[in-house]
């Protein structure tokens, strides 16, 4: 297989609402600066993979509306109706196969246009779950309660961990929540679904993200500092909150194991310089770290509050911004940026620096995708 590099990326500022832009224009807000930063035109993009949700956009085959801004007419373009991290799998495969030398991967989410609670309810099985009014907040509440009970942890930990994310997102110019909410503000925010409070779950944001992939032989044409895709793993879990133990995620463990194996990492907890996860609640901020093998089970909070070798969600994660299916792709660009900064001014001499980026579809983690990137 051809080695594949991320050679450029762009994301929008993520906001509660962008009523002045339709979603094609929102996508252009990342495609245009991406092309400009690389001094390329549409003719340099050989194929496109996008990620978006028909339900969120209120249109079937929602990618049809973005064909012009991604330069897709008379090219191959496919949509993944999942998180953007999964779209990157398809873009990667197209380049790794040798069939294409470049691929644009783009994702958008404009959650302000619809009613996220209703769309979340519609994501569940219509016979056994939807009639119960289940939505993402309810399911996240069930997960958080199970996690706390399983490990005998106090509810306040959810506020403490959320405040860590807000300290990070307050420094992130792209984040939706930049107010730097403190633990006190989090633990007095509105109760949504016990034990979860409003500031312990991700906001609903409008935003987009784009990445350009290039084959190994073409990467140098675009940048002297490519970020290499070293390994990926993805795995599905059961659909219903009743069909698995919500205090763990075998699917994330499996996805991580695959990704580490393909990247030939034997001690990921020591080898990773950075990890960015898609955490829809501060419970998930902890739980995903555990299932990625960065700390022992039930100790995610302790690990986050203590001394860590790896930087974890330096962007603030999804609590900082959640632009729908763009959220996982944003995690990948954040890791790419972190690694590029770590590599310094010149192309990294000697030691590779590794990072992990996680995307997910389904609010309590029904499908996980784990990427390993390196300088």
């Amino acid at each position, binding site marked *: 297989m051809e080695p594949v590099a991320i050679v450029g990326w762009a994301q929008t500022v993520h906001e509660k609402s962008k*009523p*002045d832009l339709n979603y094609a224009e929102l996508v252009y807000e990342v495609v245009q600066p991406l092309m400009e930063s690389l001094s390329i035109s549409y003719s340099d993009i050989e194929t496109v993979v996008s990620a978006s949700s028909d339900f969120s956009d*209120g249109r079937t085959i929602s990618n049809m509306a973005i064909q012009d801004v991604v330069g897709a007419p008379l090219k191959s373009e496919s949509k993944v109706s999942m998180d953007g991290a999964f779209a990157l799998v398809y873009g990667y495969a197209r380049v790794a196969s040798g069939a294409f030398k470049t691929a644009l991967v783009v994702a958008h989410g404009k959650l302000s246009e619809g009613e996220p*609670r*209703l769309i979340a*309810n519609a994501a569940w099985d*219509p*016979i*056994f*779950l*939807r*009639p*119960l*009014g*289940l*939505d993402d*907040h*309810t399911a996240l*509440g*069930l*997960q*958080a*309660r*199970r996690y706390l*009970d399983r490990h005998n942890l106090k509810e306040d930990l959810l506020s403490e961990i959320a405040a860590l994310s807000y300290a990070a997102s307050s420094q992130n110019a792209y984040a939706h929540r930049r107010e730097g909410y403190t633990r006190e503000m989090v633990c007095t925010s*509105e*109760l*949504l*679904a*016990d*034990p*979860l409070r409003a500031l312990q779950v991700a906001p609903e944001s409008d935003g987009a993200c784009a990445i350009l992939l290039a084959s190994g032989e073409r990467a140098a044409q675009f940048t002297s500092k490519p970020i290499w895709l070293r390994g990926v793993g993805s795995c599905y879990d*059961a659909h*219903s*909150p*009743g*069909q698995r133990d*919500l205090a763990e995620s075998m699917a994330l463990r499996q996805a991580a194991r695959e990704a580490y194996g393909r990247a030939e990492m034997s001690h990921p907890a020591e080898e990773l310089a950075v990890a960015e996860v898609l955490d829809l609640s501060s419970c998930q901020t902890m739980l995903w770290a555990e299932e990625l093998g960065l700390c022992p089970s039930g100790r995610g909070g302790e690990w986050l509050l203590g001394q860590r070798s790896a930087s974890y969600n330096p962007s603030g994660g999804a609590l900082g911004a959640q632009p729908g299916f763009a959220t996982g792709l944003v995690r990948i660009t954040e890791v790419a940026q972190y690694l590029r900064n770590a590599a310094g001014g010149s192309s990294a001499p000697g030691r590779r620096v590794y990072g992990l980026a996680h995307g997910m579809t389904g609010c309590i983690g029904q499908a996980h995708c784990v990427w390993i990137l390196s300088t």
Partner: protein
Amino acid sequence: MSSEQERSIAITCPGQIKIPYTWPAGQAGSRFLVALRDRMQLLGVRCPACQKVWVPPIRCLTCHQIGTEWVQVGPQGTLETWTIVRTSVPSIQVLPVPYATGVIRLDGADTGLVHFLGGVEFSKLFSGLRVEPVFNAQRRGHILDICYFQPVST
């Protein structure tokens, strides 16, 4: 024109998609719902490979085998986790907020059933609570033929 002025003239078009659907419960789902409606019984299906009993019935997600042995489970069970729904979204909710939703592991089942919790003060809810279903007098072969699960009377 400044971007602030441009934003103030942004036009948006409200709309709503209203499409009726008819979703079959499927062969296994129908058998589960008929037992609920006609006999107030809860059924699961046992995986022939790992012996796990799935409720509601589904192909075993671990072994990918179709279970052929139907077993009656419950009606009592144990509360595995729960939450209290606080925000009102009337178009998807059948109960007024606040109300409790939980995952119930029915006796004899290896998976949990998601359903409402009732007949109990929220402060008395805990994981491990023993519960039993309260059925609707009028049943139609629907998951809401169970009103809710309440603490087992001692």
